[in-house]
């Protein structure tokens, strides 16, 4: 058996999500090959070659692959997949966009967002916003899988020495064009990998008030997230959304501020190691899952939290 892992990257850096996918692939049993698709991404291939547990790197580069348009990438995955028992991608927006299209070309029923590998053909995945966990067995010859990154430890980024082999793309399908991106600039850690996450909800009342959370985040080295309500209201950009249909996070500490705790939000954060919350309504459902809940007005409590952290000299780890 051999497993092909689709690398998530931005042509410059290999994303950490790929490291989680490599770990999941390793558990399926077999040699792991990483496929890097893009343009001007030699550095990404070099980084992938150093990841422990990676036997080989395939690198496909040309202009039609630069922006990883699904229409141009899926045929390449389908072509390469013939030599593998599994094709695995992290369940990032890139993986979610491309993989099912490749599954259609291979006539395979993809298994989405797995949280555990039971055996080479059996996987566990959350359904109903994580309120149930389904164990499913795939009968497809080539298994296509996306991986929930938070439940697999990242593979070691250093120590491997895989060879890099160039492969050709399948050309421009002529169906779509990349017109540009507006990516959030952010000095803070990435939401999905941060050790601490502090999220704000509708209770924050405005985007300006998120500065309070950012100040606490800067002390703790935390990422800032949000509920859907805060994103819909325009307080923060869409990529802050934590939940069933946003990002899934599982930090050591999650602090929910002014968030009620709807099941769709819990779906994205209830696997955090420790959950704290600040909410003025003691009946809010978030308290039922919080390890440490504080009933308080956030406009008082958050500045106080900042003051207390400073007083005690607590710093980012």
């Amino acid at each position, binding site marked *: 058996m051999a497993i092909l892992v689709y690398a998530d990257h931005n042509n410059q850096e290999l994303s950490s999500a790929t490291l989680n996918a490599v770990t999941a692939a390793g558990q399926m049993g077999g040699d792991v090959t990483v496929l890097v698709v893009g343009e001007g991404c030699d550095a990404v291939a070099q980084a992938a070659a150093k990841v422990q547990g990676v036997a080989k790197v395939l690198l496909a580069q040309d202009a039609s692959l630069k922006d990883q348009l699904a229409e141009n990438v899926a045929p390449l995955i389908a072509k390469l997949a013939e030599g593998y028992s599994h094709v695995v991608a992290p369940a990032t927006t890139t993986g979610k966009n491309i993989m099912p299209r490749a599954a259609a070309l291979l006539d395979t029923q*993809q298994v989405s967002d797995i949280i555990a590998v039971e055996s080479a053909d059996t996987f566990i995945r959350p*359904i109903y*916003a994580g*309120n149930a966990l389904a164990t499913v*067995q795939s009968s497809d010859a080539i298994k296509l899988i996306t991986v929930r990154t938070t439940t697999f430890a990242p593979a070691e980024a250093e120590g491997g020495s895989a060879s890099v082999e160039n492969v050709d793309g399948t050309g421009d399908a002529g*169906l779509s064009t990349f*017109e540009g991106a507006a990516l959030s600039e952010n000095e803070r850690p990435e939401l999905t990998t941060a050790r601490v996450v502090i999220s704000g909800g509708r209770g924050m009342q405005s985007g300006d008030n998120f500065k309070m959370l950012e100040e606490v985040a800067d002390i703790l080295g935390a990422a800032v997230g949000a509920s859907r309500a805060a994103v819909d209201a325009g307080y923060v950009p869409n990529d802050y959304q934590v939940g069933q249909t946003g990002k899934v996070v599982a930090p050591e500490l999650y602090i929910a501020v002014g968030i009620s705790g709807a099941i769709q939000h819990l779906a994205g954060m209830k696997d955090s190691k420790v959950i704290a919350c600040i909410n003025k309504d003691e009946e809010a459902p978030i308290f039922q899952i919080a390890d440490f809940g504080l009933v308080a007005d956030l406009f008082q409590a958050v500045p106080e939290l900042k003051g207390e952290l400073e007083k005690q000299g607590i710093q980012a780890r």
Partner: protein
Amino acid sequence: MKVLVPVKRVIDYNVKVRVKADQSGVDLANVKMSMNPFDEIAVEEAVRLKEAGTATEVVAISMGPEQSQETLRTALAMGADRAIHVVHDGELEPLMVAKMLAKIVGEESPDLVVLGKQAIDDDANQTGQLLAGLLGWGQGTFISKLKIEGGAISVTREVDGGLEKIGLKLPAILTVDLRLNEPRYASLPNIMKARKKEIAKKSPADLGVDTTPRLKTLKVAEPPKRQGGKKVGSIAELVDKLHNEAGVI
């Protein structure tokens, strides 16, 4: 321009899901069912295209049991012109749904198929991409903005890093994200009118699609329960607990 909108009947998003004691699945008996929330957004977008004069006809499609008709009636009341119901009682996997949709696309020749980005029951997030792959059409997934001009469309996609803009040729597949629009509530007169609109019935066999599942569900279990519920009395206590007891800061 003709627009197809696949809509799925799912457990209502407000319902607390319960796993069956024998771990064979989720208990759906006497549970409130509704249209998948993303599909409401898809119907809304299609109806707005019609109101703007861009679309000429909106056809809602659902695969599922007899009761999926109610979901189609909702789509019709929101403004869809007619509906197609593929009646099927067993489990439907995204690949099967996509294959049936591909057959219907062959019969209907739409310019656009607008789906939800994900069904909130199986959380698969696959069907639109599968359909695009089967048809060899362009795909705009997780969109929060749509612009149609002439024979081309431009979409804004919600991605992990922020937003992305993609241009697509028609015909194309779109899957919608939460912020594309706010779906309307059907008015009473429109609900009445919807009763008279046509729902054509088909079976998977009519469409020549095999409904043997590729995935076998061995078990559906409840996730581990969190032991939450403890309260602290002050910020000082909170910081103390996080620092000294939990050791996470």
